[in-house]
């Protein structure tokens, strides 16, 4: 077993230093992942500041989800390490909320019971968390659905439930693995706005994996672009757009400049 609190070297990560933000919440230090002979990720190196909204952008199957699962402690890196706060990640942690590509709700549990699942599993005080769950459901316009079963909900509503489930334990870090990719374009836009609204309230550190350039640019403070085979970080772009952001920002020139920058980063990687 790994030591509970590993000593962390104090060299600040470049991107964080450049951003001038306080101590990073998450550090990914030259993390590689190989499956047998296949190298999935090669030396990924980045840090996420406390309260920062970071997107990892890349084509499907480039290993960005694998990277996220390693941050979540659900997969171990082949080499390198992930550090959250002062602690080395060596397994799932109570202060991380994860949202998956599909909502993975339990069909036999009501919306409220689904949201309360992490509370039950971590034996947290029930009453206080029921209150918190109610607040979250209210913010996500699901309060009348608290006693409904998932099958009675639309796809977008189900994914909102799974976001509430991730937030109910008040995690420091929210990890999202292409959470809106199964939704239609209109719902997807709505969900993006909704997520930003939630983030504006709770200010979690977010790592958001996506293959949508516009989604990444719209949501993030910073976007990391991953290339293919083996996945490496090919660009690290700060999105300096004012907040709170509305969907109308997507028509502005600065937004579209960022979209072009990100697209060029992806295409440059594909050229060779």
């Amino acid at each position: 077993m790994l030591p509970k609190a590993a000593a962390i070297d104090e060299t600040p990560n470049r991107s964080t230093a450049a951003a001038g933000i306080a101590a990073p919440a998450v550090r990914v230090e030259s993390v590689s992942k190989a499956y047998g002979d296949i190298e999935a990720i090669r030396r990924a190196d980045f840090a996420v500041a406390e309260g920062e909204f970071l997107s990892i952008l890349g084509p499907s199957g480039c290993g960005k989800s694998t990277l996220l699962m390693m941050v979540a402690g659900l997969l171990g890196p082949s080499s390198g390490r992930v550090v959250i706060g002062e602690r080395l990640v060596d397994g799932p942690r109570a202060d991380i909320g994860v949202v998956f590509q599909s909502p993975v709700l339990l069909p036999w549990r009501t919306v409220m019971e689904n949201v309360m699942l992490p509370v039950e599993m971590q034996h947290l005080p029930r009453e206080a968390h029921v209150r918190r769950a109610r607040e979250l459901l209210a913010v996500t316009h699901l309060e009348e659905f608290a006693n409904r079963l998932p099958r009675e909900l639309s796809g977008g509503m189900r994914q909102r439930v799974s976001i509430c489930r991730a937030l109910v334990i008040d995690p420091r870090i929210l990890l999202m693995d292409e959470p809106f990719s199964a939704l239609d374009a209109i719902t997807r836009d709505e969900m993006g706005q909704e997520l930003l609204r939630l983030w504006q309230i709770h200010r979690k550190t977010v790592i958001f994996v996506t293959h949508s350039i516009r989604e990444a640019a719209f949501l993030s403070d910073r976007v990391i672009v991953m290339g293919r085979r083996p996945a490496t970080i090919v660009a690290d772009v700060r999105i300096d757009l004012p907040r709170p952001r509305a969907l109308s920002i997507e028509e502005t020139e600065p937004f579209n400049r960022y979209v072009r920058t990100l697209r060029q980063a992806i295409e440059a990687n594909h050229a060779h």
Partner: protein
Amino acid sequence: MPTKLKDLPVWPVVFMLGFLLVWEAVVDLYKVRPIILPAPSQVAVALAQRWDVLLTHLLPTLWLTVLGFALSVVGGIGVAILVTYSEVLRKGLYPIIVVTQVVPKVSIAPLFIVWFDTGLVSSTLLAFLVAFFPMVINAVVGFHIHDEDLLRMARAYMGSRWQIFLKIRLPNAMPYIFAGMKISITLAVIGVIVAEFVASQEGLGYLIKLSGGLFDTPLMLASIVVLSAMGLALYGIIAWAEKRVIYWQSVPGAEAAAAPA
């Protein structure tokens, strides 16, 4: 499962009545002897007049069926849990269980008689053995979680093995377990009847064989009617419980009526 009133079994009832009427008419028309084929009315008479005999023989059959079935449910789920959590058993034992399914279990009945003599133990064991396999296989399928993200979710929220079993695997398996139980209960009836054919002094299987030997065909058919009613009732109880336990499974057609996108 009927969802609309007009899907309720009106037509099967009409067909059944028609069939019985044709049967009655044919027996009447051709003067078929009751030893060969009694008319439905004669079977009904046998049912009404011999109900005490039928009831006496129904009880042991019912009791052994329920006992064998209960053992197969407990044993089947138990083995399924072992297979789910032990890689050695999953790789070594489970394939054997799947393959031995093809053995006609009733052919083992005489062996049980050699071992345990006639009576309760042999009959229960045969019922258990016949009903066991669908239980194991259904439960194993049910305990297996196909959705990788579902297990990741449970682990990400720090679910222990026990919590994951109790809160995820077990409810996930319930529809499969009930499907297994519906197969098993009908098989358990077969197991008990075969055991009573070969080795018993009581039970409906014994009564069927006995009335055959006595050329009392109306009583034989009456016994079959009682036996069928028993099987149907047991199946009905499980189907009834299933609907209540697995409340989250949508009735076909209900999905369209769900909340708008």
